[in-house]
């Protein structure tokens, strides 16, 4: 009876972890309903003791009816019974949902197709869980479908699942296990594991008494969950440490985690297709010219998609530590122009851990721990987000002459990964060679390639294309010739690589549009473009994507990439900028081959992006130890506070004749009680605790005999005992004087009998306080017990039924 219900609860608890995937809450209500429907079906199957195979069938029927009623009710017969039409509508919705999920990056909009898809998924999981738990009685196996559900947000989201969500899910599964264990043990007979004898007395003997087991089960479960949450946070790993907030880590809603690189390509189309075109950032530049702002540089093409190698962000590459590494490949002789750009990111952009920057940035002034990747000059952070950030950047744009470009070496000195390609259809290589056939230099070949996309190839711009793997690429290049910036960029990069030009795909924003005095960049300005490498000049951006209204609106073709004879075309840069050579640019400093920072010696470093900590290890360990010590000292501090409060209560002042007798008696009462409690705690601390049945008198006798107290100490303990005794039991306690001195004497006498280790322990880790804390813990658990014992109907009523 209980198991189907607990299965439903567990499924629902785990499905709650899906919340960051959606923008709205409709999916949750849908899923709740689906789980309820399945659970009701499960309960009914249990009630009717249907055969095991019937339950999932019934569950599926229930789920089907539920989905029909909720999503295609108007087409169904009497809102409930599925008809051909409604089933068709349902399938349509399903297909749309699939397509939508492919299309959007998380968090996805919560429209009916997606909500329906989610609901159906959660409902199916609920059926499987019910099958495992109730029918096959393998509750532990139910963890697998639940885990499957759990991995969805874990796999899709860049951020780790928040710990409250994890706890909720884990609690759901644990309760399921406990319920199953209880049901199982319930058939064994009476259990003897009871925590309190009182609990045993009131037991209902009808079924086995599993309270004790339940309790231990709960305790083990809670402990396991607590450990699972706390332990990873405490362990010193390569991962950032979220508890103490050292170094990197923390993004989005929950703190903690590595820098995640969302699939930039997938995000790109999502952003371009967003119905509303919101502002992302605005900037001003010293020459007032629009400029592409690059966020990512993707340098690896694996046949499926473009990704980036792991970035290396060492502490000394922090942007506030001086100029960034020199742009790779830029020779000192190449003319550059220095541009200063002031960028303001709007507050409500999605969490972004990279800074959009004009290439190549040389100086970045931004608040926070921003680090530059040495190879690509991407600037990223693992602790800070770009939203709302205002920062300044100085970039040194190369202004190569045609000669310099032509002179670019045939064999560039650059990491071979920039020319690496996966297995490609020969047609693509042939196409590349064909386009570049009569180009004398690599540069000209590159210009030809761009021309192929913009003019000669007959390409059209459309967002309605999908995929970026080799097949899609082949389709784009050979057959359809229809796509948007991403396909253009990636296709050009692939073609360039196939004729030996190092290339990579940059993703970011176009220069945007000028509104009043600032350039404004909106979501629809998201863009991808290829960057090609020429020795002596470095990386140059190309623009194969069609611009204008029939293409990427604000795309702009760089001058140097236009075919000759445009080679003498003056720079579009405003003459007011200070064209300088690298050698006399103090900040740009591209001349500094000699100042080249030491790169990662291994050069093959791979693994999660882990910027090396600025905090030395010993400081981290020290802080950890200190925190631990502080935690450990809590009982001692609590003990001190309690003792001080009691010592204050020990003495009382009679404020005069106006002090009433009752008030005085109350003070005496409190004082003696304080002395007694303090004595109790002292005894507990020294490991000679008073048994609950030990009377004051017996205690005094025992201590005096056991520890051979001298007359003074013996007198003091007797005085305390007598005062307590009279106050508690006598008709008239008589006159009692403050017991402060006596208590001190007794404490000293007791301390003298205890070993040094005992005394230290009594001060640092007083057992009395530990016991008290344990008592508090017990009460919390008792609270849980009571929660569990709340019943909607009484046992008796159920028995009668």
């Amino acid at each position, binding site marked *: 009876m209980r198991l189907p219900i607990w299965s439903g609860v567990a499924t629902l608890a785990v499905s709650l972890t899906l919340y960051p995937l959606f923008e709205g809450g409709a999916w949750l209500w849908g899923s709740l309903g689906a789980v309820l429907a399945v659970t009701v079906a499960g309960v009914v199957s249990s009630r009717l003791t249907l055969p095991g195979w019937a339950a999932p069938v019934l569950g599926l029927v229930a789920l089907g009816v539920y989905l029909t009623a909720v999503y295609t009710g108007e087409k169904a017969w009497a809102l409930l019974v599925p008809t051909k039409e409604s089933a068709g509508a349902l399938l349509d919705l399903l297909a749309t949902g699939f397509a939508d999920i492919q299309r959007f990056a998380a968090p996805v909009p919560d429209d009916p197709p997606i909500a329906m898809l989610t609901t159906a998924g959660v409902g199916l999981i609920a059926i499987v869980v019910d099958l495992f738990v109730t029918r096959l009685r393998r509750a532990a196996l139910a963890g697998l479908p639940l885990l499957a559900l759990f991995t969805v947000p874990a796999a899709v989201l860049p951020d780790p699942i928040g710990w409250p969500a994890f706890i909720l899910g884990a609690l759901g599964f644990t309760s399921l296990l406990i319920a199953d264990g209880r049901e199982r043990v319930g058939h064994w007979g009476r259990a003897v594991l009871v925590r309190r004898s009182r609990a045993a007395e009131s037991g209902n003997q009808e079924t086995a008494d599993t309270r004790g087991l339940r309790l231990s089960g709960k305790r083990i479960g809670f402990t396991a969950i607590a450990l699972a949450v706390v332990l990873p946070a405490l362990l010193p790993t390569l991962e950032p440490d979220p508890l103490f907030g050292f170094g990197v880590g923390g993004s989005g809603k929950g703190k903690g985690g590595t820098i995640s690189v969302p699939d930039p390509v997938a995000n790109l189309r999502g952003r371009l297709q967003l119905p509303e075109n919101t502002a992302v950032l605005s900037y001003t530049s010293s020459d007032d010219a629009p400029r592409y702002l690059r966020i990512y540089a993707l340098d690896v093409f694996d046949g499926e998609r473009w990704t980036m190698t792991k970035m290396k962000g060492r502490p000394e590459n922090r942007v506030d530590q001086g100029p960034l590494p020199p742009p790779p490949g830029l020779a000192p002789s190449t003319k550059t122009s220095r541009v200063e750009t002031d960028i303001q990111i709007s507050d409500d952009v999605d969490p972004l851990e990279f800074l959009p920057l004009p290439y190549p940035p040389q100086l970045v002034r931004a608040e926070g721990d921003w680090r530059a990747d040495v190879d690509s000059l991407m600037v990223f952070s693992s602790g800070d987000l770009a939203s709302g950030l205002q920062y300044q950047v100085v970039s040194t744009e190369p202004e190569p002459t045609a000669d310099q470009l032509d002179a670019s070496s045939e064999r560039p000195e650059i990491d071979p990964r920039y020319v690496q390609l996966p297995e490609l259809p020969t047609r693509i290589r042939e196409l590349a060679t064909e386009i570049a056939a009569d180009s004398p230099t690599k540069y000209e070949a590159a210009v030809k390639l761009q021309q192929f996309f913009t003019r000669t190839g007959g390409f059209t711009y459309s967002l309605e294309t999908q995929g970026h793997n080799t097949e899609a690429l082949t389709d784009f290049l050979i057959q359809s010739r229809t796509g948007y910036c991403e396909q253009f960029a990636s296709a050009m990069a692939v073609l360039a690589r196939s004729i030996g030009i190092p290339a990579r795909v940059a993703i970011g924003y176009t220069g945007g549009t000028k509104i009043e005095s600032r350039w404004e960049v909106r979501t629809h300005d998201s863009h991808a473009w290829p960057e090609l490498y020429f020795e002596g000049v470095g990386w140059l951006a190309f623009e194969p994507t069609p611009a204008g209204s029939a293409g990427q609106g604000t795309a702009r073709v760089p001058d140097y990439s236009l075919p000759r004879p445009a080679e003498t075309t003056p720079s579009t840069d405003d003459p007011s900028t200070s064209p300088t050579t690298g050698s006399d640019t103090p900040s740009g400093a591209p001349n500094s081959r000699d100042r080249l920072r030491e790169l990662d010696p291994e050069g093959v470093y791979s693994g999660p992006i882990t910027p090396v900590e600025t905090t030395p290890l010993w400081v981290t360990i020290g802080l950890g130890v200190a925190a631990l010590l502080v935690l450990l000292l809590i009982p001692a501090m609590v003990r001190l506070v309690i003792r001080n409060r009691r010592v204050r209560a020990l003495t009382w002042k009679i404020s005069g004749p106006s002090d009433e007798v009752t008030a005085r008696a109350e003070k005496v009462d409190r004082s003696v009680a304080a002395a007694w409690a303090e004595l109790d705690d002292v005894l507990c601390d020294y490991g000679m605790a008073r048994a609950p049945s030990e009377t004051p008198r017996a205690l005094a006798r025992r201590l005096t005999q056991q520890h051979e107290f001298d007359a003074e100490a013996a007198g003091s303990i007797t005085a305390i005992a007598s005062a307590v005794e009279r106050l*508690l039991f006598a008709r008239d306690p008589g006159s*009692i004087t403050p017991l402060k001195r006596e208590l001190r004497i007794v404490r000293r006498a007791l301390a003298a009998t205890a070993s040094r280790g005992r005394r230290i322990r009594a001060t640092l880790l007083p057992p009395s306080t530990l016991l008290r804390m344990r008592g508090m813990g017990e009460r919390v658990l008792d609270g849980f017990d009571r929660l569990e014992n709340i019943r909607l109907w009484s046992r008796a009523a159920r028995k009668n039924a």
Partner: protein
Amino acid sequence: MAVTHDVSPQLDELVSTAHRIRQAIESVIEGKSDAVRLTLTVLLSEGHLLIEDVPGVGKTMLAKALARSIDCPVRRVQFTPDLLPSDITGVSAYNQQTREFEFKPGPIFANIVVGDEINRASPKTQSALLECMEEHQVTVDGVTYELDSPFMVIATQNPIEMEGTYPLPEAQRDRFTARVAMGYPEPAAELEMLDVHGGTSPLDKLQPVATTAEVRALIEAVRGVYVSQPVKKYAIDLVTATRHSPDLRLGASPRSTLQLVRAARAHAALSGRDYVIPDDMQELAIPVLAHRLLPSIEAQGQRRMPEQVVTELVRRVPVPETRAS
């Protein structure tokens, strides 16, 4: 010393009188001060005492010594299998001179009745004692005769394993406030006994040290000893614990609670205190409770005597910590 406490003169007198009686008894019984003290406690709490032990350890001597040291009528009944109830309560005999039935009071009409080897009498005779002990009155031929105060039955018995005995029924055991075991004397005490008592019976030399009126006053004083609510509650806790102990088949009766509190009062008074503390109860728990309890089969199997069970319960039941207001 932070504590000063004044004892009422009445209590002072009680303590000194009790002390005299104790000394008198102890001049006869060597080295058994606990048993003597308990005997006095029972006397002052208006109860009856059961002395149980093997023959020859001074059971009868104790009973007689107590009786002797108080200047009051004392009767001694030797219980035998052929003893009849009327031999205890008395009979109505026909007086030929007055031509009327005349009540001849039995040995029960005394302040202190020593019933020797009570378990040798038949159950019928034993039960004749019931009414007298509980209600302090005797009914013969429809006429009720009140017994004098103080009235105390001191019964001695041999442990039931001995031959030719009838175990006391539970109902009757419940009427005794306390049971005391004499135990063998210490070697030193035994030696002294040989030296001192070798020639003459020490009982003969014993002079009464208190009068009936004095004892009555003492009893009155004991009645006035204060028992606070927490201590009463503690008594109930103790007794309740015997009813719930898995080692016991039969727990202690409500009457035993009453007697425990009464005995604790006497105990406190004997210690010169005019209020009862849990210590009094703890000390009296075994003599007052143990003889009323029946061990469960399991406990019997493990040879766990009710005394042990009671000791354990006393160790487990927490003493009152706060003042109930």
